[in-house]
């Protein structure tokens, strides 16, 4: 077979597989969006169609008014945002120290942080439950925020330490010579130069707080304190067939992460070794 034709066929084959695969990847989402615009009859009719025949917004209206999706959205937003803020502040301070200062316990402490990256979350759920209950933080925002913050520290410190280390010491020295205080150096030089790193951990922390399920399930009991992740699942558990309404809720729940992803795509792909996005 002449070189040109076999190459053509080959490229066709490649695009075909890639397109089929891409379709398999996004179809379930399209299906979700489609369902969210269907009324109950249509969702359960045969044959099912991807494009709703009689699209309706009633699911969205109900989601935001009758069912507490709106409240759940707010909860998720508050929890995720505050967690992100705390993580950024705390891990910047710590990451800076690990990158630039030397002290006796530095190595062991850092390895301790790293080791816990290998420890799966379920181990700490039960003790944290006892702890949070004892602190009277059950069913509160802080009951979610504090553990979330803590669990994201190891990864964030690790990442930020990397970014801080990459800043040439000569810049710092030059600032010192120019009379800048230590705190000033941290705020005016180190932080701005580590912005990509801070953006990365901010994104991961936000998504973590937004998506986390297991702890939110355990630490909240009343409907109005649930986050979106738990709220959606429990809603489904209660109303097994209200797929239309649930789909609308899921679409609403997915919009912020998608926005974050689109805006900050360049920060996702490089930080691959962070298992944070996985499971």
């Amino acid at each position, binding site marked *: 077979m002449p070189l040109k034709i076999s190459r053509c066929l080959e*490229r066709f084959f490649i695009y075909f597989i*890639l397109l089929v*695969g*891409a379709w398999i*990847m*996004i179809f*379930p*989402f399209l*299906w*979700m969006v489609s369902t969210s615009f269907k009324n109950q009859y249509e969702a359960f009719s045969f*044959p*099912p169609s991807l494009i709703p025949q009689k699209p309706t917004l009633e699911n969205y209206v109900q989601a935001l008014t009758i069912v507490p999706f709106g409240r759940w959205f707010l909860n998720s937003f508050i929890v995720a945002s505050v967690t992100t803020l705390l993580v950024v*502040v*705390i*891990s910047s*301070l*710590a990451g800076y*120290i690990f990158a630039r*200062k030397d*002290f006796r316990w530095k190595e062991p402490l850092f390895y301790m942080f790293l080791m*816990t990256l*290998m*420890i*799966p979350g*379920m181990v*700490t759920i*039960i*003790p944290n*439950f*006892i*702890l949070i209950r004892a602190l009277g933080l059950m069913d509160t925002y802080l009951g979610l925020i*504090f*553990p979330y*913050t*803590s669990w994201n*520290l190891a990864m964030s410190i690790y990442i930020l330490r990397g970014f801080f280390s990459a800043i040439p010491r000569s810049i710092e020295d030059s600032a010192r010579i120019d009379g800048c205080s*230590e705190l000033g150096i941290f705020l005016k030089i180190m932080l701005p130069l580590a912005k990509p790193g801070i953006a990365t951990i901010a994104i991961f922390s936000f*998504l973590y707080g937004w*998506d986390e*399920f*297991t702890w939110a399930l355990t630490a909240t009991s009343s409907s109005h304190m649930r986050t*979106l*992740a*738990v709220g*959606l*699942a429990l809603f*489904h558990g209660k109303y097994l067939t209200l797929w239309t309404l649930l789909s609308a809720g*899921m679409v609403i*729940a*997915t919009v912020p*992460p*998608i926005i974050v*992803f689109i805006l900050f795509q360049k920060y*996702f*792909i490089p930080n*691959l*070794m962070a298992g944070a*996005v*996985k*499971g």
Partner: protein
Amino acid sequence: MARSVSPIILFLLPALIFYFVFELFPIFYSLYISFFEWHIIGDVRFVGLENYLKMFSDPVFIIALKNTFIYTIVTVPTQIFLGLAIALLLNQRIKGKVIFRALYYIPVITSWTVVSLIWKWIYDPVYGFLNYVLLSLGVIEEPIRWLQDPSVALYAVMLVTIWKGIGWNMVIFLAGLQTIPQSLYDAALIDGASRWRRFRYITLPLLRPVIATVTVLLTIGALNAFVQIYILTAGGPLHSTEVINTYLYKSAFSYLNFGYASSMAWFLLTITLTISIIQRGVLSKKIEY
């Protein structure tokens, strides 16, 4: 020097406090609990290793253990294989690489909750899209009860995991592939290496470190799977999708047996750590180039 110590401690203090209280302390507290018969309401009684021994005569636990391993052994290599395959295809001079990458990555960035719920609807035996397609194409004659049939449920759950993970693998492998200089492939082409030989003798060996790391991370993730299984099947039907984590969670918060649950958690922790240490060792041989 006294003056340079205090800013250090000051800067580290918040991190250390949060970390110790909510991460480090709980890890060891969990171990402590596992040696007790500890019900959330009621007595707390020291029982030593009894919880651990109980696990192995608990038929449900044994099933969970088996399922956990099956789950890991099936999903990890499959994700790697498919992710690598797509990455290889995408690495050819393809137009729209960025778009493809984004599309494949969308399942990855979506939460497990949403993904599980979407698939639960797709898996619906009567109204779900999957059965509809398979029936129309004549692939099956009767609807399959994906999440309700014990012989199928675990596979249905594994499929969701694999589907969600392919994009993550693909992105990592793509980055790895791009570090291989094109001149090596040119040289191999001139040296008469067929496509398969180029893959086997250049691509694969040079990707080995990446594959090793990915395998370790995926294995840890698979052993500790929880959310998708909890939402899709809650471990049922008839424990056919029960994994260690789901049984653990139920023991703690449904049967209220903290001691037993903690022992399972530590057991899983031990296995996870052991496997990841072994894997790092085995797959790290000769990684330096």
